[in-house]
């Protein structure tokens, strides 16, 4: 099985309220809050696909999309 690779961390800026939970608990510091106070991806290359941001987001605003998932 091929190693899973990140395609994109899609953040719905209209749903994000900027609580910062995803930023605070990302084990690899992939996310930051932008000037408008919304979550944004700054270091996608460090993402280990743990999906904790996606699972903890109270606003259902984050989707971690894998390369393989896209190929299906």
């Amino acid at each position, binding site marked *: 099985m091929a190693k899973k690779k990140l395609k994109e961390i899609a953040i719905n800026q209209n749903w994000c309220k900027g609580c910062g939970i995803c930023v605070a608990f990302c084990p690899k510091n992939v996310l930051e809050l932008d000037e408008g106070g919304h979550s944004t991806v700054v270091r996608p290359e460090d993402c280990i696909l743990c999906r904790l941001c996606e*699972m903890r987001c109270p606003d259902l605003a984050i989707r971690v999309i894998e390369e393989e998932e896209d190929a299906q």
Partner: protein
Amino acid sequence: MAVQEYIRERFFPQMWCEGCGHGTILNSLLRAIEDLGIAKSDIVMTSGIGCSARISGYVDFHSLHTMHGRALACATGVKMAKPALNVIVPMGDGDALAIGGNHFIHACRRNIDITAIVMNNRIYGMTGGQYSPLSGVGTMATTAPYSSIDNAFDVAELAKAAGATFVARTTTYHVAEAVTYLKKAIQHKGFSVVEIMTQCPTYYGRKNKKGDAVEMLKWFKESTAKLGSKELENNPSLIARGIFADEDKPEYCSEYNKIIERASRR
């Protein structure tokens, strides 16, 4: 399928405050349902009143938004009429244990196949931060400006003693655990209760100087420990997380079917 496909997108962004844990519980619940592969039309979500109750409006299942504390009574009716459906009842701490306290213990006692989720933020958020039966001694609330002197219920012990056959507790920090427990609870044949400790940064957090949502999640991480762990043994003041009960007992709808059979034979 992504969890976003189980929601009514037209009602998003949801109405809960910034950092409110109720959204995380919705997130965990949708993941549990996705993992179990249950069809949307086979689920009924019945809720009462309060911030927590709004959850049933966001899911693309059959949903009933009923009276304060009476969600379990309405859910019992649904389950008795259509036992094949999965009935899930999300409730707040006040909705479940104060206004609906009587319905709660009797639903436990009957062991009817319903999944109750107690979204415990230890305060009434929607009405302005009054203390609830789960606030506990020392909690500050708008109705307890010098701190509450009321002891809190232990939901897990209460549910177990009242007869619930699956009882678990986790928090909104421990999301993978929440998904696992919710899956087990939905699959369990009988009355299941999952207490999920959730953060209300707006009222509980502010009144009790617990900081924002991130600080409150860190507090859940530090103040809880897994049942049976060394950590809990060494520090009994920690709040236990885990499965408190998981047993097989006759389920109410099945027993009722036997009555129907017996009565039809006469």
